C-alpha cells in the first residue's frame, strides 16, 4: 500500500551533502550566454551591430521596433539597437567600474576598521559612519559638479557614493572571519598573521561579497540613470544605458520603447550578473 503522507519541506535535506549533485542549471547557462553577448558588445560592438550608432535618419524618426530596427528608432531616427550595443562598453564600465570602486574602497576601509589597532580602527570607523550618514545622492551631485561630466566621473561618483554601505558590510564580514575556527587553527599551526590574513580572513570575508558585487553592477547603472535624470549624465552622443533610459523618459507615452528597452537591458544585465554571482558564491561556499 502506498500512501502519500503530507509533503513538507525536508529539513535535513538542504544541508545534506548529497543534495548538491551537479545538475544542468538552465538559468546559469542563459546567464552565461547573456554575459558572453554583453562582453562581445563591449569589446567589439561592430560585430553585433553594424550600423553607426549616431547616424541619424530623420525620415525614420520614432519608428517602433520592427525587423529593420529591432529596438525601434529615436527622435533623430537613430537605431536604438545599435545605440544600445555601442553603449555597452560605457555602461559596463560604469556598472563594473563603479561597483569595483565601491567594493575596493569598502574593502580597504572595512579591513582597516576591522583589523587595525584600536585608534586607527575607530578613526576609520568614524569615517565610514560619516560617509554613510552623508546623503549619497549629494555626494554624487557634488562629485559630478567637481569632476565634470564624463563616464569616469560617473564611475567615481556612483562608486564613491555607494561605497560606505559596502564598507560596513566588509567590516562585519572580516570581523566574523577573524573569529572563525580556521583562523585559530592556522595560528595553532604557527602561521604568521599576514599569511592568515591573506589566505583565510580576506578570501573568506570577500566570498559573500561576490553576490553583492554582481548586484551592485545593475544598481550602479540604475544610479547613473538617476544622475542623468538630474542633468548630470554622460556627454552626448554617448549611448550609455542610463542616459538612454533617461533620454527616452519624455516620450514614454508616445515612444515607450525608447525607455523600456534600455530598462529591460539593464534588468537583464542585473539578472545575468546576479545569477552568475550567486553561482560563483555558491560554488565558493560549498566547495566542488
Amino acid at each position, binding site marked *: 500500500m502506498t500512501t502519500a503522507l503530507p509533503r513538507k*519541506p525536508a529539513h535535513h535535506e*538542504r544541508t545534506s551533502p548529497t543534495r548538491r549533485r551537479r545538475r544542468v542549471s538552465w538559468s546559469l547557462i542563459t546567464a552565461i550566454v547573456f554575459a558572453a553577448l554583453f562582453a562581445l558588445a563591449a569589446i567589439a560592438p561592430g560585430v553585433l551591430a553594424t550600423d553607426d550608432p549616431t547616424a541619424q535618419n530623420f525620415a525614420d524618426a520614432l519608428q517602433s521596433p520592427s525587423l529593420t530596427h529591432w529596438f525601434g528608432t529615436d527622435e533623430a531616427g537613430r537605431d536604438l539597437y545599435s545605440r544600445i550595443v555601442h553603449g555597452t562598453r560605457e555602461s559596463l564600465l560604469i556598472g563594473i567600474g563603479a561597483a569595483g570602486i565601491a567594493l575596493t574602497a569598502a574593502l580597504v576601509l572595512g579591513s582597516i576598521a576591522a583589523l587595525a589597532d584600536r585608534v586607527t580602527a575607530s578613526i576609520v570607523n568614524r569615517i565610514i559612519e560619516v560617509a554613510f*550618514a552623508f546623503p549619497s545622492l549629494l555626494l554624487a551631485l557634488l562629485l559630478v559638479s567637481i569632476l565634470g561630466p564624463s563616464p569616469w566621473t560617473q564611475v567615481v561618483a556612483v562608486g564613491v557614493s555607494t561605497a560606505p554601505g559596502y564598507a560596513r558590510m566588509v567590516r562585519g564580514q572580516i570581523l566574523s572571519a577573524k573569529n572563525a575556527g580556521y583562523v585559530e587553527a592556522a595560528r595553532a599551526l604557527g602561521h604568521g598573521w599576514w599569511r592568515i590574513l591573506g589566505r583565510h580572513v580576506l578570501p573568506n570575508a570577500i566570498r559573500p561579497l561576490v553576490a553583492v558585487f554582481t548586484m551592485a553592477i545593475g544598481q550602479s547603472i540604475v544610479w547613473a540613470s538617476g544622475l542623468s*535624470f538630474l542633468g548630470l549624465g554622460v556627454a552626448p552622443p554617448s549611448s550609455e544605458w542610463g542616459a538612454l533610459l533617461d533620454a527616452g*523618459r519624455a516620450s514614454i507615452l508616445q515612444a515607450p520603447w525608447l525607455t523600456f528597452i534600455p530598462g529591460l537591458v539593464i534588468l537583464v544585465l*542585473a539578472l545575468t550578473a546576479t545569477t552568475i554571482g550567486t553561482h560563483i558564491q555558491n560554488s565558493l561556499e560549498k566547495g566542488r
Partner: protein
Amino acid sequence: MGAVVVLWGAATAAFLAQMALPGDRATAILNIRTGQAQERTPDELAPIVDAYGLDHPVLVQYLDYIGGLLRGDLGTSYQQFRPVWDLIGEQLGSTLVLTLTGILLAWVLMIVWVTLTAGRGPRVRALGSAVDTVTAALPPYWLGILLLLFFGLTLRWFPVMGGSGVNGIVLPALTLAIPLAGFMGQSVRAEYERALDQPFVLSARMRGMGDLGIRLRHVLRHGSIPAVTLTGWALGATVSGAVIVEQIYSRPGIGKTLVSAVGAQDLPVVTGIVVLVAVLYVVANLLVDLVYTLIDPRLKTS
C-alpha cells in the same frame, strides 16, 4: 558621543565639498535670481558678496557656520531668504511620511512575497529570487511612471499629481517600496530559508503547527533581522531615494530641495540638509538597535 562626531563630520564634509565646488558662489546666487547663466562683473556681485560675507577667509566662514550649528542656527537660504530650519522643517514632514510609508509598504510586500516563495521547491524559489533581483534593479523613474499611468491615468484609483494629499501617498510610496522590497527580499530570503531549516521549526511542526503559522510566528522573525539593518540604511538614504519620486509625483520634499539647493549653490540649505540627514541617520541607527533587541533579545547583551 559617536553621534556628535558623525554630525560634526557630516557637517564639515558638506561644508568643504561646497567650498570645493567649481565656480563662484556669488555668481550662482545672482544668476539664479535672474535666470541667466553667465559671468558677472565684480560690481554686480559686490552686494551679494557683502550680504553673505563671501569674501571672508574660508576658515572664518567655517567657524561662523559651525558656531551657528552649535547655536542651532543653520543660517538663511540665499535664494529663499528664509531660515534653513523653516525650509527644512516644511519639507521634511512630507519626505518622512513618504519614506516611512514606503518602508512600511516594502516590508509588507517583502514579507508576503518571501513567505509565499521561500523554501518552496526549486522552481518557486528561483522565481522568488528572480523577482527580488528584478525589482531591486528597477529604475525608479520607470516604475514611478508605470504606476502613475496605470493606477493614476488608466484606473484612476490614485491622483496623478499626488501632492501632499493622503491618497496621493500610495503611488509614490509604492515606487520607493517595490525596489526596496526586492532589495530586502534578497537578504531576507536567505535568512528565512536558513531559519526554515532550523530544528525548532520541526519541533513546532511536531506540536501540530501548520506551515503558515510556522512561517509567520517563528521563521519570519529570524528572517527579518537583515531587513532591519537595511531599513536603517533606507531611512538614512531617504533623500537620495525620494528625489526622483518627488519629481514624478510633484510632491514637496527634502530631496527636491536638496537638488535645487546644490544647483543654486545655496550652501546653508545644502549643509543644513546634510546635518539633518545625519541626524536622521543617527536616530535611525538608534531605532535599528532598539528593534534588533526587540526582535532578538539575545543581541541586547552582546
